[in-house]
């Protein structure tokens, strides 16, 4: 296999197939190009979503109306949530890195159903566009929150049906992607690669794919029920017709809780790839990490009621859900232990991927532990629907999945584009992002405890100092993101050519050129070793 400088192969970016120009992208079935198309759309929408967040933060810099009224604010947090959740973080790492690297890491030339993969992308793009259209068409941007709780989602005169349809289509895209990845893992592994010789990122994608397939249909039917409620008054959730609004919450969270594991499992998979490479030693506890991915997916199916502790559910169900919530933390903690143990005694190379991965552990821990505070019935009553919850989920989703995404981008960028970025600017961007992030979100725990409600465009004067600091943190965070983006964008255009294996990794993607050729491998590889083999002297004899 040639290094990039040799030009003895054609990279997937330069391959000339049946179509030319823009059509060679829009009609591609190459998993790598599809991954890049998703990457492009997600990056654009991430900055849209982040800008919406920045606008919200600007409103909250001082009490009273600052730049917008309450209706606008309600519309903003709704669309911020819809975009961030349904367009960015649920598809997120699966559609970008899952698409690009799952086949390569298992020694395959593509996914099981390449054309279905392209269909998934177009459904995704359609859903994303509809979510934006819901802002402008008809009777005004939805103001229900991304969780569409009844009765307000039925009563609100805004474009709720548009948003529900967008979410439905995005869900369908997610289902098809999950289906594709499950079949890919089952049927396309290279000879010799048993399940337990697979690297851990494919394991994570596999576990995630099952959740996508088995949970998403529930939100699909639930959204249809809300539409039926709005259009026909079907009554399932309307107490005046005999229905139960809490039934909506059950149905909604039966999907939306597993959905957060769709968000975090691939993120955990990404950092699990990064730690061995930048410690130059095998992953500690390979089996534990693989099995804990499945355990999180499974147990995570049974905790949904912890979003409803103050809604009026039975005491018995609250006990059950609280117990299961504490249980689901265990496999996550096992992973953290294994990551740290992987680093321990390793030959540490503190490059940007590792910086972000270590940042991930720190921020994910804070998010996870504050999750337990909410999982306990008594403390939940204090913090439910306050900024505490907002801080918790931003630590987990943004600090966790977001930082893992940044780690993955900095790890795999040279492989995807064949160019290297400026390490120094990447490190500077990390520092600014990390600082801004904590300055922004940590104080939200404090005022949340003190009673600051979430989804409020105004607040009591006593919260002003912290809200001000928080907003400054947000601006610092955004500047860091912009620097990171510019650094990467510049590298794509003018970066130095990257070698096949800049980080001395040992998984399959580093054995092929940067960028990879169209069919990834010259021939199908034969797998004989376990996935993280750094040489005999570093072999983990326990695995």
């Amino acid at each position, binding site marked *: 296999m040639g290094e990039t400088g040799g030009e003895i192969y054609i990279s997937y970016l330069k391959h000339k197939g049946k179509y030319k120009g823009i059509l060679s992208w829009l009609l591609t079935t190459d998993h790598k190009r599809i991954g890049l198309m998703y990457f492009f759309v997600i990056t654009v929408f991430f900055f849209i979503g982040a800008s919406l967040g920045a606008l919200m933060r600007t409103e909250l810099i001082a009490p009273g109306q600052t730049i917008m009224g309450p209706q606008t604010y309600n519309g903003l947090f709704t669309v911020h949530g819809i975009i961030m959740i349904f367009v960015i973080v649920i598809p997120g790492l699966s559609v970008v890195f899952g698409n690009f690297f799952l086949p390569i890491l298992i020694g395959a030339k593509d996914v099981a159903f390449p054309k279905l993969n392209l269909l998934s992308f177009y459904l995704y793009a359609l859903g994303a566009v509809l979510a934006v259209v819901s802002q402008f068409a008809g009777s005004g941007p939805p103001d229900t929150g991304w969780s569409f709780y009844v009765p307000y989602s039925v009563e609100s005169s805004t474009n709720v049906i548009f948003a529900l349809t967008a979410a439905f289509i995005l869900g369908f895209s997610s289902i098809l992607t999950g289906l594709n990845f499950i079949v890919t893992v089952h049927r396309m592994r290279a000879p010799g690669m048993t399940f337990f010789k697979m690297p851990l990122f494919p394991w994570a994608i596999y576990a995630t794919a099952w959740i996508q397939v088995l949970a998403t249909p529930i939100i699909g039917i639930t959204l249809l029920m809300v539409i039926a409620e709005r259009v026909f008054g079907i009554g399932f959730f309307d107490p005046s017709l005999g229905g139960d609004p*809490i039934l909506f919450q059950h149905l909604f969270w039966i999907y939306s809780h597993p959905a957060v594991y769709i968000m975090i499992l691939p993120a955990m998979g990404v950092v699990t790839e990064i730690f061995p490479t930048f410690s130059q030693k095998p992953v500690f506890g390979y089996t534990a990490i693989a099995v804990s991915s499945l355990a999180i997916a499974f147990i995570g199916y049974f905790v949904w009621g912890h979003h409803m502790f103050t809604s009026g559910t*039975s005491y*018995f*169900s609250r006990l*059950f859900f609280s117990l299961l919530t504490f249980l689901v933390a265990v496999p996550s903690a096992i992973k953290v232990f294994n990551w740290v143990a992987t680093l321990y005694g390793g030959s540490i190379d503190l490059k940007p991927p590792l910086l972000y991965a270590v940042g991930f552990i720190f921020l994910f821990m804070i998010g996870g532990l504050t999750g337990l505070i909410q999982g306990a019935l008594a403390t939940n009553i204090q913090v439910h629907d306050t900024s505490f919850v907002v801080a918790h989920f931003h630590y987990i989703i943004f600090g966790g999945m977001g930082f893992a995404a940044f780690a993955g981008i900095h790890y795999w960028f040279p492989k995807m584009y064949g160019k290297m970025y400026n390490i120094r600017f990447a490190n500077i961007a990390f520092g600014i992002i990390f600082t801004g992030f904590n300055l922004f979100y940590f104080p939200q725990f404090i005022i949340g405890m003190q009673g600051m409600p979430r989804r409020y465009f105004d607040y009591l004067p006593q919260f002003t100092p912290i809200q001000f600091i928080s907003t400054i943190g947000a601006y610092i965070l955004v500047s860091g993101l912009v620097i990171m983006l510019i650094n990467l964008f510049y590298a794509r255009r003018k970066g130095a050519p990257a070698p096949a294996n800049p980080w001395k990794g040992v998984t399959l993607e580093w054995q092929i050129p940067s960028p990879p050729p169209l069919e990834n491998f010259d021939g199908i590889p034969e797998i004989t070793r376990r996935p993280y083999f750094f040489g005999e002297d570093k072999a983990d004899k326990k695995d």
Partner: protein
Amino acid sequence: MKNLRSHITGYSTYAIILVFLLVLTALSVVVTGYHLGAFSVGIALLIASVKVATVISYFMHLRSENMFLKVAVSGVFILFGLVIIITFFDYLFR
């Protein structure tokens, strides 16, 4: 590469299965005539479950599929059952 598992089910097998399914259908209709109170839902669902298992095993050939698929199909039903049961932790104890 040709599939080694070219197992062809005979027409008469399918016909027998259909007769079995029709008998069960008739049974479920007849049983509704009797006043069994709360049990009637249970019996109706039980008969329906047997019919579903039969269609899946024979018409959909799950019987001759690999172990993974058999486990997955069972797992899907079990998972759904658990979701219903857990939802009733709320409704039955309010």
